[in-house]
């Protein structure tokens, strides 16, 4: 059963996806599946999932953590602070 998930992109992912936020109805159970789904929709989104971290509702979670309706999901490419 599909439910709405809010996605935000930053940095290289934003440029590759061509959008910074989107909300989609999806059956993807977790962030890993969701990212594959997004790659299907945005052909430019080529960044390898192996290098990504993910946050759900502003906390780091595993790529395989189950998602629920209304979750805010952010895919996080390698950080470069400082």
């Amino acid at each position, binding site marked *: 059963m599909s439910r709405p998930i809010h996605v935000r992109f*930053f*940095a290289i992912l934003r440029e590759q996806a061509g959008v910074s936020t989107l909300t989609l109805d999806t059956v993807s159970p977790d962030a890993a599946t969701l990212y594959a789904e997004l790659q299907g929709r945005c052909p430019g989104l080529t960044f390898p999932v192996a290098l990504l971290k993910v*946050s759900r509702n*502003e906390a780091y979670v595993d790529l395989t953590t189950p998602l629920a309706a209304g979750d805010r999901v952010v895919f996080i490419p*390698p950080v*470069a*602070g*400082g």
Partner: protein
Amino acid sequence: MFELTATPIDPAALSARLNAPEAGALTIFEGRVRNHHLGQPVTHLEYEAFDDLARLEGEAITAETERIYPGTKVLCVHRTGSLAIGEAAVWIGIASAHRQAGFAACRHVIEELKLRLPVWKKEHHPGGAAEWVNCTAEAAARPATDEMYARQAALPEVGTAGQAKLSAARVLVVGVGGLGCPAALYLAGAGLGRLTLVDGGKVERSNLPRQILFTTAELGAPKALAAAARLRLHNPSVQITSHEGDLTSANARALVAGHDVVLDCTDNFTSRFLLHDTCLALGVPLVSAAVHRFEGTLDVFTPGVGGCLHCQWTGRNPGELDSAGNCAGGPVFGPAVGVLGVMQAAEAIKLILGLAGDAPRQSRLVNLLDGSQLSIAREPRPDCPVCSRLDTLKAVPPVAVTDTTLFLDPARIASVGPTAQTVYLTEPGETAPAGMTSVPALDLARLRELATAGPLVLTCRYGVRSAALARLLRTEGNTQVFALTTA
């Protein structure tokens, strides 16, 4: 305290916020935009942050730093937006009574920021080219085989294949004291994939002679966190995680699971037995060491090979042994724990590389006073109450790591409900402790009956049989079966 700002950083104003009459040391780190990076000229930078998470993560880092380095006050500001060459991207200030803690804390904050803060920078080069730092270029710039490991990989017994095994290996070090410090240092140096440190203690002055990861800067700091911080400086490519807390029967399985080798660097028999039984149940090899004054023992326990800890100490329980031979806090010769700790690292590396040889069949006794060493065979006892039944125990499917509900702390028995029954599983010839209901461990039919009748809590001498049988009954659909953890 952590802040994000889109306007230029004002060091004077920030440093004034750390004024405190009792703080004698102010340590500051300012990260500025350089005109070059990885050999390429840079014209300016653009910083983008995931604001909400960056604030939470930054606050977590500064709070954690104040806890690792007692007596420090941390202020950290990270810039966002477009920055010119020379502008400050990050400012970290530490006010402290003592300078050592100030330096260590400042260094810790910047290392953690670089690792965890969701901030990205886009580097602009002359002519209009630009790229997101860390996303592609740095990974590409990293050499495939690191010159750092050249002399180790040059050993025919290691080679590039062995080095790849090491970089994929995950090792758990329980106890970051006199044994754990040198062990962790040489493990990190070997280029492991992941190193997990467990210790609930804090750094004390009397630790410093032997616990070589710590200096006076870390006095009062949680050992697991302070050790992780120092090891990251030694080898930034090893993923180091720390568990700030003691090993308990409630957390032992979750800590051991997911590691390829475990090091027992604890200083008492109770922890030693708990770690041993957990590793045995999960099939993870264990390198155990203990030091008494000038002497130490080293044992490599590989499930199914050689005798186990119970074969060595048949008929004794950890409490007895601790009261007889526990040397926690007693006299100790510093280099003795040093030698044994490094030997533990050696055995762990050899286990990963498949070079353990006969080590799992021997106890090594090292005497630093007379310079002798003795290897004695550690044969499995055919009547060992634990490892002689290893096949039976292993036939039970391993419990999922997330299934922590299988284990029950004695203090929480009541939570299972008023009808729960607690049963002690006996071996042939064993008598249950006075007042306890007992069932022979081999009487599966009776146990199945009890499990279907209502909530069932199992316990036994070493906690291994009860865990295995509770797991078996669960896989048969009895969701209300528990294994009592032993203290």
